[in-house]
């Protein structure tokens, strides 16, 4: 069976962040992902979109859930997927990032999924390889597929972005999830509020076009979506926040604080959760308000859409050069 080549969705041959994406690119990815949600719910989950393509997951920072999601996405689209265990690789033996890139490039992959602890590392790597690169999270910079899956989850719950009020709560300063979501939601016409103690707010956060709140109760008033962020354990021990109990008391999402949001407001969390630190189990496990499980399901679909869209930009003969 032959059909016309599918229309391109993305301008670039990499997905390094949300910041450079247009509203139509975002919408294009979300529309494509809708199809993959349906496919993933079918008995036969296999497509042939990426048949013959090679995808390498290169995770310099451990993340079981994101890596599995990308792996599943690639396999369902028919790609050959290789997980590079960086811990056991030559990186551990002192190889530089760029040497690793050159080595991998020589293996001629088509898609490279990279997670790295340093902001900007994925972009640096993308300049040295000939394949499509997807940023699976770099330092405190961006995590574009997380923001896209959050957007897909919001849209599939029937919410329109225009005029939507979204509160992002917690460790904004160190969060790549927050940054990607701020870019995406603002680009799509939503109003973003940031809620955190001043020690967890980045400098000049208001310049990102967000409203800033240090009082969670004030910040939650009338919001449509509450996005909780994970508080890293090392930040809780007196350096930026005095203790987990104080954090939960003032910034943990519980039933009482959630009542201040708009009736029917949705609760999101990128996972993994710290129950009793940033979120009360009572809220996290309430399927009426919590869409945390849907986020995971939509994550696979959005990553399939991203891989599909990027592969459309690959040269017919294989790689870009």
């Amino acid at each position: 069976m032959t059909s016309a080549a599918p229309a391109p969705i993305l301008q670039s041959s990499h997905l390094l962040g949300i910041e450079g994406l247009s509203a139509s690119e975002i919408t294009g990815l979300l529309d494509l992902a809708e199809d993959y949600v349906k496919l993933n719910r079918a008995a036969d989950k296999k497509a042939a979109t990426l048949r013959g393509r090679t995808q390498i997951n290169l995770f310099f920072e451990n993340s079981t859930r994101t890596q599995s999601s990308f792996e599943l996405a690639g396999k369902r689209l028919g790609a050959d997927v290789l997980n590079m265990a960086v811990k056991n690789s030559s990186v551990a033996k002192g190889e530089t990032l760029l040497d690793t890139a050159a080595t991998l490039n020589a293996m001629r992959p088509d898609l490279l999924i990279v997670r790295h602890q340093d902001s900007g590392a994925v972009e640096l790597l993308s300049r040295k390889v000939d394949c499509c690169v997807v940023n699976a999270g770099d330092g405190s910079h961006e995590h574009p597929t997380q923001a896209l899956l959050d957007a897909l989850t919001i849209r599939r719950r029937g919410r329109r972005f225009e005029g939507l009020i979204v509160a992002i709560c917690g460790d904004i300063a160190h969060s790549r999830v927050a940054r990607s979501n701020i870019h995406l939601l603002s680009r799509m016409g939503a109003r973003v509020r940031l809620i955190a103690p001043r020690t967890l707010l980045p400098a000049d956060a208001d310049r990102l076009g967000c409203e800033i709140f240090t009082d969670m109760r004030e910040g939650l008033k009338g919001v449509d979506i509450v996005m909780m962020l994970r508080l890293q354990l090392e930040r809780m021990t007196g350096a930026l926040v005095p203790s987990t109990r104080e954090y939960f008391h003032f910034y943990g999402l519980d039933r009482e604080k959630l009542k201040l949001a708009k009736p029917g407001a949705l609760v999101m969390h990128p996972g993994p959760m710290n129950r009793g630190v940033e979120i009360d189990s009572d809220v996290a496990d309430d399927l009426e308000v919590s869409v945390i499980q849907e986020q995971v399901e939509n994550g696979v679909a959005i990553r399939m859409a991203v891989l599909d869209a990027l592969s459309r930009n690959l040269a017919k003969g294989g790689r870009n050069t």
Partner: protein
Amino acid sequence: MTKRLAFRNARLIDPATGLDTRGGLLVENGKIADVGAKLFNTADPHDPEVIDCKGLVLAPGLIDMRVFTGEPGSEHRETLASASEAAAAGGVTTIVTMPNTDPVIDEAALVDFIKRRAAATAKVRVAPMAALTHALEGQRMTEIGLLREAGAVAFTDGDRSVANTRVLRRALAYAATYGVLVAGHAEDPDLSNGASMTEGEFATRLGIPGTPSAAETIVVERDLRLVELTGARYHFSQISCRASLEAIIAAKARGLPITCGVSAHHLTMNELDVGSYFTFRKVSPPLRTEADRAAMVDGIAEGHIDVIVSSHDPQAADTKRLPFAAAAFGAVGLETLLPAALTVVHNGHASLIEVLKAVTFTPARILGLDGGKLMKGAPADLVLFDPEEPFIVDPDKLHSRARNTAFEGRKFQGRARMTFVGGECVFDRSRERKH
């Protein structure tokens, strides 16, 4: 039944409103019910309890923003109860306690302990400050939000500066989250390490290691930059030299949310008062030069220094009857706060109402307390005093458990006759036993 107490024939001074007039004041159920020039002028009040003030000053009770006690942990030096006796005798109706106790007040449960002990044993109001960092170690911020909910009025490491700038920056930023007040002691711990008095000719002659006043000003200037960065409300607990004051004046002109205090010691004494190794005048920061002392007086007169504190710090023989360099810092001061502050008035540098403002209304405003004013509805925390009454400080007549006053034998004018907290008389000098 309504409990009433009437004052007539008083010289009413209210620094909150600028009121300075002959008149009367009525207390009902512990609060000021009425006050004014015409009150009880013509007709006698038909109340059971009437105090004829005979023209003496009736003013809001003093609020002392810097008081160390020994409770918990060093009760042999001072308890909340004994500190409150000294406060009442000094016309002080609210003491703001420092967290430098054993254990350090760095947990909500300990703030609660201080409040309960104060309610059970103290004659005056006790407003506790809590530690800014755990165990005053300057490493990890305390649970500022929870401590505030427990009743801490401000956050401080007491007589210590937070040396680590990054820790202080984060603590200030976190404090700004809740809009709470941070009070800082300005003394660079490395520059002042091992020093016992201010650096200069006199310390050289005594052979005592000195600390330069720059050790204070460096920290003042550093902290001002961090306030600018974080937006925290900040109070310099006490400054002692001209250069620090100049830095603060400039910062206030830039609109920073800062205030500062000076101790009664630094208004009335200079480095020469250390005399022949008088350890009761070893205080932190140390007594400075005469030019610095004069600058502190000007600071009060011009309103650049906001409050006067006693820096009451009870020490016993075990920590003070030692060679100068080995002795502890600190002197008691609750009973001499008002007399020492009044020297600024008697010397013609500032008006009585301006000086009273620095020990009543302004500390109340900085701390967000109800008192410090003669207004309807305010708590009836009052001091009745004769601003002219001469006396000589006799350590044996002090009410504090510790007697380490820096003012032994000093001649002052003006001291409390009667003190009232919530309309109850907690001190009456006419009932004091004569020595």
